């Protein structure tokens, strides 16, 4: 059974910080379908539209009927471990630093035999397993063989922790503690085992609802952080940057209306200044130092979470300028993801539907409770996914978007 990990010792600043290296990332284009599903936390395989054969490794044609319509379909992952090995030697630097490394060969009930990273709690073959897809340190989809049933401390498995961003014993910065979402995030992350949580507030001289409760949490420290002020961001990064393992950027300005209903650019400029330029300022100051700590032991720097909006994917005219600022932030977050990847840091984009807050007052339910959003962020970190669409509204928009972006645009224009 997996031994629970323990709180890391204080870092000796004299010792060299190990430089991040990545597992092999080259893949054929067709194989990236596995990565695309894993980025959302799904294990999907190619299933032939013509003959229903399930296949792996990914191919350009059905290995049974040669059909070329091969949609990726979510799999249960149930199967039997038929063989295993414990690697003591590897040709790759990433694995060489991490051997012994356990691997398995699993015969999926759906048909194919798959090579998997094998969780330590899976028994010797033959054994029932669940295969799931995860993103590895390189951000590429890989398969993992899990025990058939959940066991204690599963997330602490040494190999699995290389693929997830589990908050346990990690230090977190939440950029805005003033909102209900920020406070829910702090509580959820502490509940998930975060060691320290720094919570930003732009105007420390002001009191805000929930401040007293936040201060009572022993893991929480409040820090001054105004993302519209380059100097403030630089100072915060100078003080905390080298300690932050997970940065959750939840600060946002959200106002209603589109173009005609509010004349001028002041509100739109404020939204961009926080939602877009705020992310850019944070990324420029915290990004480099977090990248340097991508392989800093058991509790390395591991993730950057952006609170975006489902409106980032298609403009919601009733909140038109806000949607535009979130779309800008999404685009920048993709750039950040590309720049963080060489260090093995995951950029997680969260696309909630309307949150239960003041600025969504006029939107009909269901609306996402801050606690539910915080739970979704913790789950995303634990599973190491890249894109999260929490709540029923977000899920429905996503389904509509995937079916037809143009149809969704017309529907949204209709109000």
């Amino acid at each position, binding site marked *: 059974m997996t031994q629970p990990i323990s709180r890391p010792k204080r870092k000796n600043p004299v010792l060299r910080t190990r430089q991040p290296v990545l597992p092999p990332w080259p893949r054929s284009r067709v194989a990236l379908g596995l990565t695309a599903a894993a980025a959302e936390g799904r294990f999907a395989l190619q299933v032939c539209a013509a003959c229903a054969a399930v296949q792996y490794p990914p191919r350009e044609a059905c290995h049974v009927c040669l059909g070329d319509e091969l949609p990726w379909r979510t799999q249960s992952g149930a199967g039997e471990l038929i063989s295993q090995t414990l*690697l*003591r030697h590897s040709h790759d630097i990433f*694995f060489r630093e991490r051997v012994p490394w356990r691997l398995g060969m699993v015969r999926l009930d759906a048909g194919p035999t798959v090579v998997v990273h094998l969780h330590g709690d899976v028994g010797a073959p033959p054994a029932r397993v669940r295969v799931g897809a995860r993103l590895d340190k390189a951000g590429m989809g890989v398969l993992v063989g899990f025990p058939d049933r959940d066991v204690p401390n599963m997330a602490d498995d040494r190999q699995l922790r290389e693929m997830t961003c589990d908050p346990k014993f990690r230090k977190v910065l939440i950029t805005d503690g003033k909102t209900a979402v920020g406070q829910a995030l702090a509580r959820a992350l502490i509940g998930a085992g975060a060691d320290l949580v720094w919570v930003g507030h732009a105007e420390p001289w002001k009191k805000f609802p929930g401040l007293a409760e936040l201060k009572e949490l022993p893991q929480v420290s409040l820090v001054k952080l105004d993302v519209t002020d380059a100097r403030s961001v630089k100072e915060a990064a100078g003080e905390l940057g080298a300690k932050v393992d997970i940065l959750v950027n939840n600060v946002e300005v959200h106002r209603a209306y589109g173009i005609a209903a509010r004349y001028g650019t002041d509100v739109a400029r404020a939204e961009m200044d926080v939602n877009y330029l705020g992310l850019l300022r944070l990324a420029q100051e915290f990004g480099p130092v977090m990248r340097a700590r991508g392989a800093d032991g058991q509790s390395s720097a591991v993730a950057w979470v952006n609170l975006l909006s489902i409106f980032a994917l298609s403009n919601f005219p009733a909140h038109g300028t806000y949607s535009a600022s979130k779309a800008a932030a999404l685009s920048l977050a993709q750039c950040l993801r590309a720049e963080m990847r060489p260090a093995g840091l995951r950029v997680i984009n969260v696309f909630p539907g309307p949150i239960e807050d003041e600025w969504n007052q006029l939107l009909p339910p269901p609306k996402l409770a801050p606690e539910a959003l915080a739970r979704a962020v913790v789950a995303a970190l634990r599973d190491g996914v890249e894109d999260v669409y929490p709540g029923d509204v977000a899920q429905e928009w996503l389904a509509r978007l995937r079916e037809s972006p143009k149809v969704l645009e017309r529907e949204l224009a209709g109000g």
Partner: protein
Amino acid sequence: MSTRAGYAGVAVAVPVTVPYVRYSIRSAHWFIARALAALLAGAGLRKDEIDGVCVSGFLLFPDTAVGLMQHLGVSPRWLDHIPMGGASGVVALRRAARAVQAGDAEIIACVAGDTNHVDSFRHTIASFSQFARDAVYPYGSGGPNASFAFLTDYYMRTTGAQRADFGKLCVAQRANALSFPHALFKKPLSLAEYLDARPIAEPLHLFDCVMPCAGAEGFLVMSEARAQSLGLPFARVLATIERHNAFPDDPIQMRGGWALERDALYRQAGVGPKDMDLVELYDDYPVITAMQLEDLGFCEKGAAAAFIRANTFTVQGSLPLNTSGGQLSVGQAGAAGGYLGLVECLRQLTGRSLGAQVPRARHGLVSGFGMINYDRGLCSGAAVLAGAHA
């Protein structure tokens, strides 16, 4: 089933080896050039008397066989390039024998060679195939050690084979290698040393794993009449088989294409497993040797361990096996590993062994096994050869 034509009139001659080295700063082209030069010298031929060439080499890239012809100044009227790794030797023999029979070429040089730079093996396995790159290498990057560890783990569990059974093969092959001048492993190996070796990819330990190196092998295929006029000792081809991607629905590899083609092989050869005076099985890992003993009819499926316990495998043994030491003791020079057994078999059958000679060797079986593409080796081949006086 159709009856395949035999190989009457075809001679296989001039077994050559370019001495193996662990690492080389030369390229694959150099090793293949040396093998070709050795073939010409061994046969007393000019370069323009070779009118067919068959080439195998993993590290010829960006060249192919045709670029190599300009590189070496050869103008063949028949040219083949066989990228089948460990099955290259048997497959090259099949292709060349038919070409000679048909008159498409008169003298065909079959050569395989590769270099081994300090970093080249890693590059080879990282981009070995699309499936390897997509679905194997990102999983620990263990290379073939990991793939064969899976097969070995499964084989041992389902058949009851023990490490000592594999060890017996490795120890016997090392004994054979001690008299073979080109073997890179010169020290005797005891079963205790085999069992105590450090783990590499459990259940595989150090002496289960073939060692990559540089080198080349080659032989000539021509008509018997031509061989006789050149005064070359030769072997005849009694039968050959190949089969690729056999048993794709097996969840894990427990058998190769030999199991499908074995009956055809022995029927064509007119001799069976019991008639073999020596056997050269493809041996990058001993589990594959065990599998071939079964698939090629030396024992029942799953019974190789008992067969190994009941036999001895040195040149003097009850079944002389991998008489030059096999790849496990000679080294694996890339695609030349697929030629090693065939070239050694030619030497034994023509009575010109470089090491210990199997007395009165008349019939030899050579097998090939190549290309772990994803979870299994895809190419299987085998040939039955006979000495000229068999």
